[in-house]
């Protein structure tokens, strides 16, 4: 049966995504419609399949089944047309760490076919906006985890994509830089862009996102406008209600100091 056409306002459509690694089913059929001009949070417990889903949604991992549409363009059939619309910040992947921060941003821009003068200008803007000017001449291998995150975010932004897919963008980032990133992303969404981010921090998702999907066991447990998903509860309580609390919350009496 042919899949239904994407909703016209969808920036990213995930259709029946499946992925299995050996005996482990990482994603067991995920469908999501992410509206254009939305700030979309994807939350879920560890091992829920968030990173696998976002990898399939950005062309980094081939799905066993299912499809991805970026503004109506099939990512896996027409990658040359779909990928330029995406800006991607993966979690847990290396960067070319023998380059300096400035060189890494230039590299990302040139890979996207941008003109060198434009790359130079945007590189300097991004280094300033993300408070990375000092890091511009330092090798990425000498960066802290937070700095690496920020430079990878700069690489995702340099070609001014229409959709940003960010896996844990605030992890290990200091509060001042986190504030700067929040402002950049909010202004991006306000100007018509779409941000999809995954996070474990419910307060952050509540504060930033207007839509949220709760993922657990490789499936979508709830998705929609954040108020609909919360259903009158705190997002964290709703999240725990959906995915379940720790089964065995035993008391570590031996850890007590007195």
């Amino acid at each position, binding site marked *: 049966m042919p899949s239904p056409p994407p909703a016209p306002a969808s920036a990213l459509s995930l259709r029946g995504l499946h992925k299995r690694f050996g005996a482990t089913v990482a994603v067991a059929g995920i469908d999501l419609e992410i509206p254009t001009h939305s700030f979309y949070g994807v939350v879920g417990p560890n091992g829920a399949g968030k990173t696998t889903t976002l990898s399939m949604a950005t*062309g980094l991992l081939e799905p066993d089944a299912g499809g991805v549409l970026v503004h109506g363009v099939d990512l896996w059939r027409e990658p040359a047309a779909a*990928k330029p619309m995406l800006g991607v910040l993966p979690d847990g992947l*290396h960067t070319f760490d023998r*380059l300096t921060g400035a060189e890494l941003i*230039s590299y990302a821009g040139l*890979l996207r*076919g941008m003109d060198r003068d434009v790359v130079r200008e945007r590189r300097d803007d991004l280094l300033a906006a993300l408070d990375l000017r000092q890091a511009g001449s330092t*090798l990425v291998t*000498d960066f802290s985890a937070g700095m690496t995150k920020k430079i990878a975010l700069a690489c995702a932004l340099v070609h001014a994509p229409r959709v940003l897919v960010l896996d844990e963008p605030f992890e290990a980032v200091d509060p001042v830089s986190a504030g700067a990133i929040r402002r950049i992303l909010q202004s991006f969404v306000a100007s018509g862009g779409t941000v999809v981010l995954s996070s474990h921090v419910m307060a952050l998702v509540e504060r930033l996102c207007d839509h949220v999907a709760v993922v657990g066991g490789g499936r979508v447990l709830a998705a929609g406008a954040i108020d609909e998903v919360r259903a009158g509860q705190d997002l964290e309580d709703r999240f725990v209600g959906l995915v379940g609390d720790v089964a065995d919350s035993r008391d570590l009496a031996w850890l007590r100091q007195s």
Partner: protein
Amino acid sequence: MVATVLTLKYRVVRHQLMREWWRALLLVGGAVWSLSLIPAAFWMQRMLSLEVADVRSQILVGAAAVCILGWIVVPLLVTGLEDTLDPGRFAIFGVSARSIMPGLTIAAALTVPALFFIAVFMILAGSWRYDGSGVVALAVVGSLLTVALMALGARVAVAWSTRALRSRRTRAIALVTVVASLGAVAPAGFIVLRAGIESAASYELPVVLEWLGRTPVGAGMVAPEALASGDAWGAAWRVAMMVAAVWILHRAWQDNVAYTLVHPLHRGGGAQRRSDAVLAGAARRTLWGPLGSDSATRAVRARALLYWATDPRYLVGSVGVVALPLVFFGLVVPMLDLDPRWAFGAPVILAASIGWGRHNDVAYDSSALWMDVVAGRIGRQVMAARTQAVLVWALPAVGLAALAILAWSRLWEVAPGLIGACVGALGATLGISAVTSVVLPYRAPGPGENPFGAEVGSVGASLVAQLISGAAMFAILPLVTAPFVLALAVDARWGWVALVTGVVLGVAACVAGVRVAGSWYDRRSGRLLAGVS
């Protein structure tokens, strides 16, 4: 702590083998192959026991010297050293080097290669059985100490090399030392073997072996002979020297373990670069004409060139390819007493080993493969740029080698044919490697990982890719080298044919390989990341 470390090792290996079952097959295959060599060791023991004592000890010294050299050189240049118990992984547990060393030492002795060498040298110690039980006991001690020297020597060599590659200054010193020692192989080989292998075996070799018998390399093998001939003092000081050497190497290893625990490997040494080398490199387009005018190609080429200049893994790889042609020129040609024209094979071998050495290039350079993948369908540009970055240093290197051989032989009339054969070999092997690196990638040490590191069974894991790329290379090399062979053997005018066929076929194979690899790269982009990590 010994039991904890050993249990840890075997649990990690077990889990690794359960996750990737084919590694277990390769490990078992390696063990069976080792066992199949044991009868040969018994045959050698029998042959040795029939020799007179001093000849027997000299042969054993030679065997020990070759094995020690192999234990040090092979992990550094070819396979890497199994790193299940990489000391850096203990850093988070707050343990001291002294507390984990006994466990690490026993674990190092309980590997397949170490057990195999212990078995072989113990069997060879049996060749002293007609000289009394005391001599056999001493031969057993000498054998164990010699194998300990091998295993510890490999650990220390890898640890020191890793440390040397960490900073720019020590890296330069290390590179100069390695190149100088490799460079010394050729003239040393020629000096020792200048009058033929029989003369060398009769005159130079016994002197060298006698001297090695006074060093830790061969002392363990000579000590039984000393005791058998009534020189108890000669046996005693040799064993004492071996014990001291093993103790010193063990201390050096412990020192390196202690250093590793508090010096994580991934730091870049605080290097700074004010200029943007990627943007500057991308501005240089004239050299490549229409092939390199694309923005993505220029970016990848600029980055790849930076990696060739700064990444220890690449430096190790580039030194490794020089070894084979040097051994061919310095040892194989004189040892087999081949016609000097065979020496023209050395630059061709250099070209082929540089090209074939890139057969896993995508995995080696995969640290941010995701950036290339998310940027769109740029497989052709990526593969072309990687190949161009290799050509930047490979063409001058092969050219220099060819020039050196021509100057040495003074057969300048074969220059056109040699150039054709070298360009053909380089182009054809780079083309094959471009395809296999996309179609058959296997896991390589990541950036920041030990460039000499290897997982259990990884040698075999790479075997399929190496065999296929090697077979393709051997199938195509005759096409580009045959006219050159005719130029050497039949008529020098064939050299011009070799020049044309070599350049045309080499360039064609390289371009075709890159194009095929590029389209496979795009087609497989969603699987490549999983294949290399």
